[in-house]
């Protein structure tokens, strides 16, 4: 989910040409395509860590990883290259790889694809994602309890449904413990424009926000900017991000893909892979990061209690809900499930921002 040119994947793709050693009992080669760098403290790091775990835990599984692949025709060529290298399970990990991945999957029915996104499934094409939206509700609870100015900031790359869902659940959580809490959204226009992310975080702090959350590929820039100015942050994508903010860290969400990926790898090895749509939330694909030192025990307990409720199936998107222009978007009793999140196109009451 990154705009920008990149050439380093060419270098990496050339490295793939090395033939496997004779004694190698390789059972499965997993190909992975990343939109950014694997050590970004964020989105890409979460996949890299999980797949490294899979390769360590399952004997005979080899990883071939290609970083910084743009969401263009290049992605298709990289995936073709992975197939030629013998990959039987491919992870196109960015939403923008969808078309390329589907084309390559149609040509190679014997190769399994696990696409991090949504859409139709096929026999060899599964889709999955961690549902962070409901899990953002306890994050909002934490922010609503910790804020002193009652203004919470949220930096998002683009106003897609999943990002809007995160903002909305965050605001609903904050409002549930702090009726005065409001969430201000700043859209940077890209998933990885670091300079704009820094400026957006600064703008939010200038306007009086004291807690900043984010939905961008790497939370690093926003968290560091907020930390340097003495603000508090709620992390996203990778639980490791907490080391970036020794003072202002409250808590955050990270992806824990490893168990599901292990299952997928096993199913390919045993020939039982079937393309499915799998969306899992808190407790499975999504985990809550440890709390920062400044978070009082009673707030920690409250957040953990709410998180447990979410794990048991509590859905914050339950009507009646009005959007921030006063329209009733969800009648009493109606719900927005994790599978419909991509189509969300409104901000809930209390969010300051324009969804369309």
């Amino acid at each position, binding site marked *: 989910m990154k705009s920008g040119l990149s050439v380093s994947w060419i270098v990496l793709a050339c490295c793939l040409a090395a033939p496997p050693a004779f004694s190698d009992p390789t059972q499965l080669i997993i190909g992975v395509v990343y939109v950014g760098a694997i050590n970004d403290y964020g989105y890409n790091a979460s996949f890299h860590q999980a797949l490294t775990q899979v390769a360590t835990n399952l004997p005979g599984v080899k990883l071939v990883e290609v970083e910084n692949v743009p969401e263009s025709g290049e992605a298709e060529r990289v995936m073709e290259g992975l197939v030629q290298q013998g990959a039987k399970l491919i992870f196109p990990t960015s939403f923008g790889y969808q078309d390329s991945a589907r084309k390559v999957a149609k040509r190679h029915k014997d190769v399994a694809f696990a696409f991090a996104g949504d859409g139709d499934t096929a026999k060899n094409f599964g889709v999955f994602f961690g549902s962070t939206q409901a899990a953002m509700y306890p994050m909002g609870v934490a922010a609503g309890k910790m804020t002193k100015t009652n203004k919470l900031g949220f930096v998002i790359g683009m106003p897609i449904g999943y990002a809007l869902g995160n903002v909305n659940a965050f605001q609903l959580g904050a409002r549930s413990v702090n009726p005065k809490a409001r969430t*201000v*959204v700043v859209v*940077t226009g890209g998933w990885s424009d670091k300079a704009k992310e*820094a400026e957006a975080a600064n703008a939010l702090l200038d306007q009086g926000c004291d807690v900043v959350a984010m939905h961008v590929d790497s939370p690093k820039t926003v968290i560091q900017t907020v930390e340097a100015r003495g603000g508090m942050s709620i992390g996203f994508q990778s639980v490791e991000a907490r080391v970036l903010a020794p003072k202002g860290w409250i808590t955050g969400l990270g992806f824990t893909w490893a168990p599901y990926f292990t299952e997928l790898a096993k199913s390919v090895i045993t020939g039982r892979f079937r393309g499915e749509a799998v969306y899992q939330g808190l407790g499975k694909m999504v985990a809550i990061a440890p709390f920062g030192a400044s978070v009082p025990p009673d707030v920690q307990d409250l957040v953990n209690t709410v998180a447990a409720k979410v794990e048991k199936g509590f859905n914050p998107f339950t009507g009646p809900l009005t959007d921030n222009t006063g329209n009733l978007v969800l009648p009493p009793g109606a719900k927005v499930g994790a599978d419909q999140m991509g189509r969300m196109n409104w901000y809930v009451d209390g969010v300051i921002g324009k969804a369309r």
Partner: protein
Amino acid sequence: MTTPLILGLLAGAILSGTSLLYATLGETIAERSGIVNLGLEGILLIGASVGFSVTAASGNAWLGLFAAGMAGGLANLLFGWLVVTRKANQLASGLAMMFFGFGASALIGARYVGAVIVGLPKWRPSWLAGFRWVKATTLFNYDLLTWVAIPVAVLVWWALFRTRWGLGVRAVGESPAVAFAAGRNPAVLQYQALSCGGVLGGLAGAHLSLSLTLTWSEYMTAGRGFIVIALVIFSKWNPLRAIAAALLFGGAESLQLQMQARGSLISPFLLDMSPYILTLIILVAWGGSRRLAAPAGLGRTFYGSE
């Protein structure tokens, strides 16, 4: 507490305008000597990447800043070798330098993506910290590069317009043949101008990675190098006007973020376009007078000194 829009805007304009100003000054010097470097984006990336990598490896941001300046200067010397010594087409060479910059910066920075660094130290004079609105923004809490940005612009103006060296550079930019006939060596002056410009470009890139974001990621300049080429035209190749140009464009970028942070109901997509619309307006507005201000020999290859 909500900061008045104007203060937030100013704070943001200075924050994003600093690297724009250094890059504009660097490109201005180069273009005054008759050489347009469309590869500035690549120079910025190399500066950002080298600055970050050296800082991450050594733990010293000053060393990183120094290395970034050197790397920018060297990259521009390479460009100079292409267009001055080898007499290659400037536009094509510039684009080649841009792609070289993408690749080289990615390669250099790859090991340090995700590294955590201590950036350039920032100072805010204590008597200013007492003001409520100052404390609520980034105003006057700056690193060395921001503090000396305007003095550097004045220095560049002085060097170009008040010294014998600057006269030579400008003469070469107007007409290398005439400068050559008057006893100046166009190639030497162009190399000097390019290396100064490269150092400033390297520093501009380093400001992004060592101060603003504390991060290195591929293509993090996101087109700022090209904006700067427009800013040079907007400032009519004048280092003092470049201050206003950088602030204005930095302000346009900051406007859309500050407006969002204040809860403006204007579409973020429309606001996001505002800096580029401003660039277009500037180019159209100055379109007619461009000939008058541009160095006459800009972009032309000089064959005469062989």
